[in-house]
């Protein structure tokens, strides 16, 4: 083949995007009706089935799309420019994810710095406090809401601390796996990547334990006022991202074991690793602002 770099590469048509669009439609429709129906009568009805079909077809779509992508990449159809496009695309995708978390961190800070103190009478809100909930006391974590829902605060020692160490360690192992890939040390790569995946799974397992503990023993629930709300939505969305990241890394591990990737051609690996580091950084923010302070 001729020199690729002076010529643009334009990918061929593909059926996967439209499959993906349709499955997203099923997911949104299914999720929407499920939620609405449960609210009405406690029974999700047909929405649940649509939702499940949607999720399965999204997974199939991703499988098919990435398989094609891998095939094309392995047969050397891509050029340096496309590689750069993918990398930049991934970076800005991660940036948008950061902004998504910012919305929830924003809610957390707003509650802690403004709305909760105001409800307690801070600034010029003495009357608000007097008239609405005179018994309300400002403490964070908010273990007793203005309308009297009580809960307990999750400490930062124990499981959360262990999870922090696990995620930090996983970032290190992943980094050295990447170094191994770049230096073409395949055993180092495989072992450290496998270790990262294992860390990810352990993290998720512990997270589940933590939730069970919170629900069963601590009365800390999703609807336990603004503390529980921010706690569960932040850790929950983070957990979803860890799940995605772990799946991503598992796929990378399988590909590594099949001998894919070379020191100068491993966009997918790079993307997975960026994603993982991002998830890690979000956790640090979480650990500090949700658990410690």
């Amino acid at each position: 083949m001729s020199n690729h770099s002076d010529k643009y590469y334009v990918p061929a048509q593909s059926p996967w995007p439209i499959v993906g669009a349709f499955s997203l439609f099923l997911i949104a429709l299914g999720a929407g009706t499920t939620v609405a129906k449960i609210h009405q009568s406690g029974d999700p009805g047909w929405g649940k089935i649509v939702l499940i079909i949607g999720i399965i077809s999204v997974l199939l779509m991703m499988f098919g799309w990435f398989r094609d992508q891998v095939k094309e990449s392995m047969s050397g159809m891509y050029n340096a420019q496309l590689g750069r496009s993918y990398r930049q695309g991934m970076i800005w995708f991660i940036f948008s994810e950061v902004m998504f978390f910012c919305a929830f961190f924003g809610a957390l800070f707003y509650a802690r710095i403004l709305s909760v103190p105001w409800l307690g009478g801070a600034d010029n809100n003495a009357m608000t406090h007097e008239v609405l909930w005179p018994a309300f006391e400002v403490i964070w974590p908010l273990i007793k809401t203005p309308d009297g829902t009580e809960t307990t605060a999750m400490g930062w020692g124990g499981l959360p601390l262990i999870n922090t160490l696990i995620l930090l360690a996983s970032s290190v192992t992943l980094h050295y796996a990447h170094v191994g890939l770049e230096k073409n040390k395949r055993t180092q790569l495989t072992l450290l990547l496998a270790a990262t995946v294992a860390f990810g799974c352990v993290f998720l397992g512990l997270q589940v334990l933590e939730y069970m503990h919170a629900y069963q023993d601590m009365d800390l629930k999703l609807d336990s006022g603004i503390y529980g709300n921010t706690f569960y939505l932040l850790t929950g969305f983070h957990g979803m991202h860890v799940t995605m990241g772990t799946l991503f890394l598992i796929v990378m591990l399988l590909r590594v074991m099949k001998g894919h990737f070379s020191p100068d051609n491993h966009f997918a690996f790079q993307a997975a690793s960026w994603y993982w580091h991002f998830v890690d950084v979000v956790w640090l923010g979480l650990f500090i602002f949700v658990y410690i302070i």
Partner: protein
Amino acid sequence: MTTLVQEQDDHDEHHAIPTGIKRWLYTTNHKDIGTLYLWFAFIMFLIGGAMAMVIRAELFQPGLQIVEPHFFNQMTTVHGLIMVFGAVMPAFTGLANWMIPLMIGAPDMALPRMNNLSFWILPFAFLILLMSLFMEGGGPAFGWTFYAPLSTTYSGDSTALFVFSVHIMGISSIMGAINVIVTIWNMRAPGMTWMKMPLFVWTWFITAFLLIAVMPVLAGVVTMVLTDKFFGTSFFDAAGGGDPVMFQHIFWFFGHPEVYIMILPAFGVISAIVPTFSRKKLFGYSSMVYATASIALLSFVVWAHHMFTTGMPVFGELFFMYCTMLISVPTGVKVFNWVATMWRGSISYEVPMLFAIAFIILFTIGGFSGLMLAITPADFQYHDTYFVVAHFHYVLVTGAIFSIIAGTYYWLPKWTGVMYDVTLARAHFWCSLISVNLLFFPMHFVGLAGMPRRIPDYSIQFADFNQWISIGGFAFGLSQLIFLALLIKACRKKGKPVDTQVWEGAEGLEWQVPSPAPYHTFDKPPEIK
């Protein structure tokens, strides 16, 4: 200028033009996707427009006559959502898809398959939104700004569908924006340096950053609405330690940049058209770039000008007032530059230019009413009246939409290869221009006199004005059917074939490829002087 001869080696990575429905479903071609976006936007414009007709019919007279108040609320809500997310934004994305690769000498968008996905999820999102109107209890009725607690405590169960459809719209916009950024960053032909890029490319580049910064925040806030309504959280409920005002802060942190998302590409279109028909270079190119960037940056620190009457510490009111007024400086720079470009140019009044000039004047009116609204104590009077409605329709209809129409008239011959029916186009212009002002100008007065927005009934003294407004509204709606007829005719290639250049004074790479632009352009990067 010479026509760029396309050297195409058919044996290597070159795909024939697919046919049939699969062409559109599977397409990865930026021109196909651009066309899909534009038609989708136009259809949404007509559907949203039909809802506006319902609103204006009800408001033709005081009292309740045609629709139930609850249905009226659904109409205002869905009209707003459709026009913002279904008409204006996709239309600009369509223009971006068509024009950015042509303008920077790229063969396509950088991530063509994702491009297909970002288009095709949109019709589904709006299908869900429209379906929700037929659910028991009706569709969303809380205004396009879905303030809590209207959207939480007091909304119907269809809110769940609303939330998920907004999620999909957000995903679509984010993917589209990533594609634009990567394309511009990475696919410019050699020699197309940053400061040689056409302004349409620049403005879209900056818009794309706004999109990826704020669409996720919108996704976050609708998610909180979902959990507040259905899962017992209390983000926007003081009883649980939250605050309904927090909703407004998060929403407008998205919402204000969003309005600039809808106007920055318009600035780019106007900056392309005005020089062409003034036969002069754009005045102050680099100041245009910097002005766009400053508007984008400032748009992140003005959001609470929508909340002056909601209340916040006095320091906040002052801060947001001054920052808002500051934005009119770079905006003024732009208007100045367009006028200076026309100054002593040899202007000719082709249809795109007519719309562009109307844009400059009428958008400026919207800017001025914006300035009035930015003054905190004055806004206490204007807020939630028809004055605000007048303001944002001047900037959005005679601003964003006029620029989309202007851009369409400007580039349509390049897309189809034929000149559209100019008589129809002129008719479309004059009908739209007169009716749009009849529609929106009196709103200033009824607003200043205190007529509240989003209410299906009004006090008797507003009756005369509202009749005129409604007549203007129907006339504007009908005028768009002229546009529809013209577009259908042009797409069937009825008209005189045009040459490569199309407009005598036009400059830029898009005018160097044949008309109609071939399916694949710039397989090899063009030379840029």
